[in-house]
């Protein structure tokens, strides 16, 4: 606890800084590899499409006590009603799930229920039957895609209006697409079953991923506005500082969001068996984790890359480099004065070591007076630089 909060403090003051924005190439590479893996999973293995998308019948037999040889028993039960049908039997907790082709008539469904009930020694009324037409999943996907498009349009408008720059919208949407592709890729690679509930889960990830990104961007906006005002930091540096300052927050919010989802996942997996709950929470769990990563390591670097190209930001970079060079020279000139060290730790605007290094490379001959400063005078920066 102590070290974590200390870590947070150091990140906030800039005493410790993780180079996130300036090492964007590393993160991009990592993400590209992940995306490539996801694409390989999607096109190579393909998604494990659930019953809802193919059409079929599913029976859930709860509170089964005797699991010995359950697969064969279920197949026998189905075989007595409809011989030669394709049966998939899975088991979770104390529930046996039997999936088979679609029996159109309810009378067949009832027969199957009776057969299963006698095989597994439960009452026929306790068995859940679920029959899905083949076009059902298609209509769900259709609606999901419509929802996705509407959401993207609305959210980019809202974000552009809120942050007053469409570049933030673009960066947020890139992060969003990144999350979605990776989550779906993980589904393909791990072979998790995709059901309408997981599709809804994917859509909910959109909201959550943006939530995280918006929190970071809010701080980025605040810091960069300050930087533009005082010209002490480049856009990238200000953005990096914002990410560092919100890092603890991002970790905390993600952990807190993941905890309930994890508990659903746990209960769902060990006690409930497959269903809406498990599908939703699995999609959410993967998505929230990926979303946290992307809002820190993808969204902000992308935004910085986009903004750094603007002429105004280039001008800011020049100003900031000049300022930092001056600071570095001053610091180099009177290293032994303790006051300087104080100033270093006092203002959060003071640049961290990594950027000081290149700034001092400015080789301009300076008068000795300028380097050392006036004698015996407490040094104060001019008003504009304060």
């Amino acid at each position, binding site marked *: 606890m102590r070290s974590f909060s200390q870590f947070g403090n150091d990140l906030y003051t800039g005493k410790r800084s993780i180079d996130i924005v300036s090492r964007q190439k590393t993160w991009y590479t990592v993400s590209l590899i992940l995306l490539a893996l996801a694409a390989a999973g999607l096109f190579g293995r393909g998604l494990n499409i659930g019953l809802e998308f193919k059409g079929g019948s599913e029976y859930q037999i709860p509170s089964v006590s005797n699991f010995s040889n359950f697969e064969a028993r279920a197949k026998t039960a189905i075989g007595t009603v409809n011989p030669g049908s394709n049966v998939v039997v899975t088991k979770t907790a104390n529930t046996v799930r039997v999936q088979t082709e679609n029996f159109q008539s*309810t009378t067949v469904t009832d027969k199957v229920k009776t057969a299963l009930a006698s095989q597994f020694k439960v009452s026929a009324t306790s068995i859940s039957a679920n029959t899905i037409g083949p076009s059902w999943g298609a209509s*769900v996907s259709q609606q999901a895609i419509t929802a996705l498009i509407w959401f993207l349009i609305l959210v980019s408008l809202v974000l552009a209006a809120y942050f007053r720059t469409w570049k933030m919208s673009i960066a947020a949407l890139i992060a969003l697409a990144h999350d979605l592709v990776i989550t779906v890729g993980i589904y393909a690679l791990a072979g998790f079953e995709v059901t309408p509930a997981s599709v809804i889960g994917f859509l909910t990830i959109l909201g959550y991923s943006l939530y995280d990104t918006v929190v970071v961007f809010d*701080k980025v906006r605040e810091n960069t506005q300050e930087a533009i005002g005082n010209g002490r930091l480049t856009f990238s540096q200000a953005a990096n500082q914002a990410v560092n300052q919100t890092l603890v927050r991002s970790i905390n919010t993600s952990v807190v969001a993941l905890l309930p989802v994890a508990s659903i996942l746990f209960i769902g997996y060990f006690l409930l068996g497959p269903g809406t709950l498990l599908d939703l929470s699995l999609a959410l769990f993967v998505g929230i984790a990926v979303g946290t990563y992307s809002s820190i390591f993808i969204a902000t670097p992308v935004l910085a890359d986009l903004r750094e190209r603007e002429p105004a930001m280039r001008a800011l970079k020049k100003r900031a480099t000049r300022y930092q060079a001056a600071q570095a020279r001053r610091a180099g000139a009177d290293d032994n004065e303790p006051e300087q060290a104080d100033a270093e730790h006092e203002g959060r605007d003071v640049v961290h070591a990594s950027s000081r290094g290149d700034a001092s490379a400015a080789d301009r001959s300076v008068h000795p007076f300028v380097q050392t400063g006036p004698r015996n005078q407490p040094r104060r920066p001019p008003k504009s630089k304060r």
Partner: protein
Amino acid sequence: MAINPHNRGPLRTLSVFVLLIVGLYGLLGAVSTWGTAQRTPKLGLDLSGGTQLILTPKLVGKQVINQGQVTKAVDIIRARVNGSGVTEAEVSTQGVGDIVVSLPGTPDAATIASLQKSSQLRMRAVLVTGSAAPIPAPTPTGTPTSTPTTPATSTAKPTGTTTTAPKSGFPAALSAATTAPTAAPTSAATTAPTAISPTTAPKPGAKPANASDPAWVTPQLQAEFVALNCANPKSVEAIVDDPAKPMVTCSSNGLEKFILGPAEVNGDQIANASSDQQSLQGGSTGVWEVLLNFNGAGTTSFCNVTSRLVSLPSPRNQFGIVLDNQVISAPVAQASLCAGTASITGSFTAASAKALADQLKYGALPMSFTLQTADQISPTLGGDQLTRGLLAGGIGLLLVVAYSLFQYRALGFVTISSLLIAALLTYGVVTLFSWSQNYRLTMAGVTGLIVSIGIVADSFILYFERVRDEVRDGRALRAAVETGWGRARRTILISDGVNFLAAAVLYTLAASNVRGFAFTLMLTTIIDIVVVMLFTHPLLSVLATTKFFGQGHKWSGLDPERLGAKNVTYAGRGRVTIAARRAAAEGNQS
């Protein structure tokens, strides 16, 4: 005890909030004591057990449906469900045109069939009739009996009367007993033999002039007519009812078959249908009739049809009322009826007249439906799901509580109390919704509620971290709470706004039973904002004036020293305070 003047604002907000909660629960108590509300939210089918059917419109050709039609369809299906004696059934729309029927318990196959089955009602001119026997042969007309048609036309119904025609081939004994209005032939029926006569034979190559033109009957249609076996349910089901084309079909009792012209009057053009005893000069005659009212378009179409049919020879003076591919009635047009009302008479009983009227009224559904999914959830499984869902929620809540205590120490209690308050509000609102909007909590809804624990707690974290930032900048706690709130509020509003947007889009557009998930997400997002604004912030403001928090006790979670605050609140020209010097010294050493 005197109130700290700094606390007046926050305390006022808090008391407003308390009033809000008391009001909510007062309302809930009132409606549950004196009204019909329950004290617990209604549970969806997947938790309480039952059957959920999803019906999708079956469209013919390029037919499109609009929202109005779907709404009407829902009304009609609801009437049918209630008519089948099922209580507490829910019928609602979902996505574009899907209709969700939720029934408690397990309905029998007949109920399900009746819901998905009946759908289209059209009036088509009769071209050819024949006995339902596989080989059509000229059959004798039914036994003529006297009918009260003429008096009825002149007196009781000045607008004109349509009378059911004889159904040729019906045994006379059956005509009184069948529910279908098989009845009394009129004089018109006797003038021409009903069968495939040369007059109705196809004229190859001729283009049909109107819907009654025998030219519609192509050799192919003729062949279909011959082949059609009304006794075989499969062949009846296979009949395609395309309004623009003629069709070959059976009567609903399977005793007769028809070739019908294209549809001329649609079921949705029937404004109302009722059954009553025919009245004659103020007194009841004891003869049952079915009264029809048409809407504007229906009046015109019906007028055109009857005007044309009235002069035609039998059987082409009949029009078939087709419901779900089967002719439920084929009355003879006795006059040209242009006033928008009509009556059908025949040998109805009270029950058969009512059945026909209901079919005319509720059968007037402009589309048919296919059964998309049928979900049967046993109550055992539903109950299991609920308890385990609640268990998951409990564990999730405990984890969040533990984590926030670990991270925020005493501030964690603010999180916990805010979460509990949010839970209280959510429970109240959900229960109220399930009373007023008939909202039902499903497993997906429960999932949404559990997931939202994290999302609601997130906004407290945003707030606390912001306050900590301000403390790190050296502000005194009370100032830090205010400035921190000012900044955190913006972030909370926009991030909750984005979440709400996602949930709202999901709710309006996404299909399937996961709609409940989107609903609870939307609800908790709003409740989150309410709680943060009206509870958490005022509470923290008040707490900031206490000694424990205000002076940054070690366990308060807002200890300035622990947060590395620089204490530069006022340091004058020296700018450097002892705390900062110490931090600097530590920094040099490390």
